[in-house]
């Protein structure tokens, strides 16, 4: 049965369209419209300070952004941040998931504790670590100094790395959650077969566990990476992009451009470039991770 695309009479409308109507209205209002507005904005010279003097400038904003050193720097920072954080989290999360699976007692308790960080207000996490790692009042540098290690966690060399560590602390639990679910969903028989065949622990892991987990790994990777692109709270809570601009991430850059310098047009252009970048990234990951078909 086919339904006409344009429905004039609401009473005749198929129930499936009635059911999605509220969502469609809501999302058009709060997402689609702003999104289109953003596209328009990116083509204007729109400054909050001169809100009555908006001029169409075409792709000038894009040109400006694409050649802006601090945008490129922010993009570079974000990419290194995302790549290192996600890889750490992937490896740690998978190892912890495998370990938790091996737990004989306290399994539920350990899982609950280790999952906890992912639910916490990120700004609170940022401030917590700013406090813990502070070179004057932080407990970690204090005791590190006692054993002769002197590190300036938020200094020019380490700041971005510290932010990565904080992200790892908060978001490894997400990977853990995904992998626990993934491992639980795996069928038992291939593992039993491998044991009967005499396969060792590592062989089993690399030739059975890992390939079967592949879809979960890909999904977890994409979700986490996209989320990491939005990193803002830690930067805002701790370094405000500094020292210099060594921790300025793309979100912080857009925040600065739009709401500190009030240049909305350029900020919109930057956010659109971000979206394009993310899209390319997702398509790339999905294609690369697709299992090769044997012909």
């Amino acid at each position, binding site marked *: 049965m086919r339904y006409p695309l344009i429905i004039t009479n609401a009473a005749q409308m198929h*129930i*499936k369209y*009635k*059911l*999605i109507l*509220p*969502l*469609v*209205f*809501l*999302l058009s209002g*709060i*997402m689609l419209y*702003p*999104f289109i*507005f*953003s596209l328009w*904005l990116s083509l204007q010279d729109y400054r909050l300070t001169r809100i009555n003097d908006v001029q169409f400038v075409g792709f000038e904003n894009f040109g400006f952004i694409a050649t802006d050193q601090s945008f490129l720097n922010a993009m570079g920072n974000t990419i290194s941040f995302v790549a290192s954080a996600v890889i750490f989290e992937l490896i740690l999360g998978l190892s912890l998931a495998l*370990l938790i699976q*091996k*737990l*004989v007692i*306290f399994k539920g308790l350990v*899982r609950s504790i280790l999952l*906890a*960080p992912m*639910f*916490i*207000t*990120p*700004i*609170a996490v940022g*401030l*917590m670590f*700013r*406090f813990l790692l502070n070179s004057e*009042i*932080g*407990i970690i540098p*204090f*005791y590190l100094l006692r054993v002769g290690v002197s590190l300036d966690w938020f200094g020019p060399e380490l700041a971005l790395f510290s932010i990565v560590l904080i992200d790892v*602390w908060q978001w490894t639990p997400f990977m853990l*959650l*995904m992998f626990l*679910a993934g491992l639980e*969903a795996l069928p038992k028989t291939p593992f039993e077969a491998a044991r009967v065949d005499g396969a060792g622990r590592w062989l089993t892991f690399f030739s059975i566990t890992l390939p079967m987990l592949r879809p*979960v790994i890909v*999904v977890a990777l994409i979700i986490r990476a996209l989320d990491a692109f*939005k990193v803002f709270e830690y930067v*805002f*809570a701790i370094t405000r992009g500094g020292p210099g601009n060594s921790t300025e991430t793309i*979100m912080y850059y857009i*925040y600065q451009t739009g*709401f500190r310098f009030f240049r*909305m047009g350029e*900020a919109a252009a930057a*956010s*659109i470039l*971000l979206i394009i970048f*993310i899209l390319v990234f997702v398509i790339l990951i999905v294609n690369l991770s697709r299992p090769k078909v044997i012909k």
Partner: protein
Amino acid sequence: MIVSFENRLSRFLGTTAIFIAIILVLFPFFWIFLESIKPPSLGGRPDIWRFEPSWENWGEIVFNSNVPLNILNSFFIALITVVISLICGAPAAYAFSRFRGFQGARYSILAAEMMPPAILILPLFLLLYKLELIDSRVGVITAHLTFVVPVVTWFLIGFFDEVPKDLEDQAMIDGYTRFQAFYKVILPVVRPGLAAAGIFGFVLSWNDLFYSLLLTGAESRTLPVAIAGFWTFRGIELGKMAVAILIAVIPVLILSYSIQKHLIRGIGGSGVKY
């Protein structure tokens, strides 16, 4: 024996690794809690472990600050956001789960979930500015809906997928309309899912800083924005900040603990099948 490995070394290493992970997770909370009950004169001293506990910081925050108002704002905003998300998300998720022709829609929900806030904040800010809704709860709720609605909907699709289709067929044969079958039979069955999705949405809204920072003012300020302020204004008020952090974190931890096993199905469930 805590970990089931055959050889003793792996067993030892496994147990140690889990132990370290637990300490790494718990220690920051512990230290923050210690800080919150240190007398203000001892605040920010990493060498002090033993002291006379004082509830002065807690008293200050509870009786003598804006934090209770911020909590109320955060709570109210998160609650309304979740209610709207469920009202719009549940019927749509049901439709996506049951009817043909919505495969694309599932992925647009996922895409909406992935939309970076950077692209939405500029137009939302300008719109709310023109509508004079900056520093209003309505404004923040609107912004929070942009990320809570997709997540809640995505969650619920997974839960509806698990309900056998025969149930609403049976209800329709029993004399009910399709819509009655949905709300009299299917909704009660997925009630745990609705609760889980709602709580997860609540936590997301409660935790947001980015939108709240830009869209709230003195009146509508949420807890995360307030917390951020403790380090920037009037120097550092470590003890009070510690209290505020704990106040923000504790309810979220309790709530999310209650939905943990559903979360695996919600986030993982729809993803694992991909």
